[in-house]
């Protein structure tokens, strides 16, 4: 089902999307999207697929639970905000504060991501959100991270160029971050340890990346051709001694 979005205000557009989903529509294409906020917010349903042509506005896929959204362009800020499950694939770059408090599902970005990615991502038992960016990221990557997996590939980085900003994993107290290439310890939050992934890690990592490569038509061996660093929180309570009782 195609929905023309040109000049349509977000309320109307999202109403149409919700109606289509409720009506059992499994394959929805939004054409000429430009800047409409809140697309796919709170919608439910496994097997529902939404394709977006154009740049969707802020807060896309917030609280989303199940569907898959493919954006054939760049995406703006705050997407996958507190998302519960489902998948978002972005063919271009995406903005700041992606996957804030994300609880499950996948966010795959082909290109760069902005500042504060995966803030306070959650994870418990089998519920484990995954964010993968093929490009570079800004400061505060994985800030307050409590669970899930963040992977940064830097496939577009020039030789020697840093692929991640400062304050990496600051406040991290759960989950795991994988960075393809070297990590400068000076840019890493004090509560984070930098490790070399072991065999089990690499198997898990390959699993996530195979899915990513399939979705974005990339060669998994290319992606795996460089060593990764693994970042883990080194203390569950890094600030315990800051307080007096």
């Amino acid at each position, binding site marked *: 089902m195609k929905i023309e979005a040109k000049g349509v205000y977000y309320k109307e557009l999202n109403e149409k999307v919700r109606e289509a989903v409720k009506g059992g529509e499994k394959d929805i294409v939004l054409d000429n999207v430009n800047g409409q906020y809140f697309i796919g917010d709170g919608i439910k349903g496994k097997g529902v697929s939404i394709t977006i042509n154009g740049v969707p506005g802020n807060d896309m896929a917030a609280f989303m639970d199940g569907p898959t959204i493919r954006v054939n362009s760049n995406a703006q800020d705050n997407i996958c905000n507190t998302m519960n499950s489902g998948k978002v694939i972005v063919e271009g770059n995406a903005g700041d504060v992606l996957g804030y408090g994300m609880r499950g599902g996948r966010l795959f970005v082909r290109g760069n991501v902005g500042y504060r990615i995966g803030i306070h991502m959650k994870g418990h038992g089998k519920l484990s959100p995954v964010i993968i960016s093929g490009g570079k990221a800004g400061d*505060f990557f994985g*800030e307050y991270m409590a669970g899930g997996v963040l992977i940064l590939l830097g496939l577009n980085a020039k030789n020697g160029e840093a692929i991640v900003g400062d*304050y990496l994993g600051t*406040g991290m107290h759960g989950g795991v971050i994988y960075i393809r290439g070297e990590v400068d310890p000076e840019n890493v*939050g004090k509560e984070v340890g930098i490790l070399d992934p072991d065999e089990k890690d690499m198997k898990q990592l390959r699993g996530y990346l195979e899915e990513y490569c399939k979705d974005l038509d990339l060669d998994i061996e290319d992606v795996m051709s460089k060593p990764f660093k693994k970042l883990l929180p080194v203390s569950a309570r890094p600030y315990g001694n800051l307080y007096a009782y």
Partner: protein
Amino acid sequence: MFKSQALTEYIAKIDTNKCIRCKRCIQNCGWGVYSWGGDKVNIDTNKCVKCLRCYHYCPVEAIDIVDNPTFYKRNHNWSFQHIKNIKKQAETGGIPLTGMGCDLDYPVLFDNLLLDACQVTNPSIDPLREPMELRTFLGKKPSRLDIKRDKKGKLKLKTKMTPQIELRSPFMFSPMSFGSISLNAQKVLAMAAKECGIVMNTGEGGLHEDLYPYKTNVMVQVASGRFGVNPEYLNAGVAVEIKIGQGAKPGIGGHLPGEKIPLQVAKTRMIPIGTDALSPAPQHDIYSIEDLRQLIYALKEATEYKKPISVKIATVHNVAAIASGIARAGADIIYLDGFRGGTGAAPTVIRDHMGIPIEHAVAAVDDRLREEGIRNEASIVAAGGIRSAGDAAKAIALGADACAIGTTALMTMGCTVCGKCYTGNCSWGITTQRPELTARLDPEVYGQRLMNLIRAWNHELMEILGALGVNSIESLRGSRERLRGVGLDSATLDMLGVKPAGR
């Protein structure tokens, strides 16, 4: 011989059932309250000052120090202190002395000011996980910079910068001289200052050779007594301070009793052992503002313009005009000591009735320097009544560049503000030169405690900045927009440049 009619203030009690006769109280008390009576500890409660040293060192908690229940008849007009001082004066004809800062119930404006915090329209910042900057420079700043780019596009600074004191956070320790406090107490200050990247201040007693290793974190003082001042001393620290006055005793000089002048103090000060060390009331080379300029520049010459010069004054009524004059006389730092500031010894009548609070002084001085367009000419240090990081944040918001703490620092060494510093009997080993008392103040142990305090205050300051949504101390400095007054009259609010809460 009549018994003194000045009532004993405290009653020291020992529960003889609990007491194990270990005699620790006898060893610990510097006042001679306790003595051994053969089978139990005898108590001369008249000597007790409630410093609580014995209480802390009694292993079985057998000691209790209580206020004397035989109080003078309660009277709102005639307080205990009024009556006691009259009795004392009648008996001696003397001026009652006191130590520490004014303890009367004057309004504390810090307690009538509240800080802002962010909600919705701007975000607060997490100080633990995001950058938060407290670095502070004290000294004259140029009002504008001349910066040019060279052919390669690299920036070149054409403006000549004047020397600064760099502080890791906007705190420093107030001047407390060797003599008024023990060498060990000075070592505590020096060690903590070095570890915390801030500075201690020698006070006017010179710099003992043991403190030279800490000189990158020491500010040396030149006061009217000129104790221990030589070219090496002037160039030893990071800055030189001219002491004009002290908040607790504006307008009067210093008087270090002979009991506190043993050999080491006498040597550092170059005066006879056991004589009273007298600091004249004024600096006798400064009878007017142009004379201050002369001394400032004499010191600048002697230190080859490598050290910022600070001028410390007690905050008196006309503080704004005085501070303006000090800035124009060439001082790099103006150290304001509020009337609640501490002292080792001061006449009670002076301490309790002279000067103005630091809150008013900072506001007035900051305003005046801004009105005259010379706020950049000198940094402002606020001292005299900073009790917490909250007070410090408020002082900074009113316009201070940094805050100095004295009493607060001594408290980390055990001080309980008993106010008897002038006797030289301090049981905590702080304001005494008696070797058996000073030996108990281990600089390593207490240096760590003082470091802890500064570390905790730094964190508190960062929490405050974070809640205010700024990540650098200079964005709070002078930002009175982030303060509101509660229960203050409009004249006071106007004077402080602060709006009432709710507006």
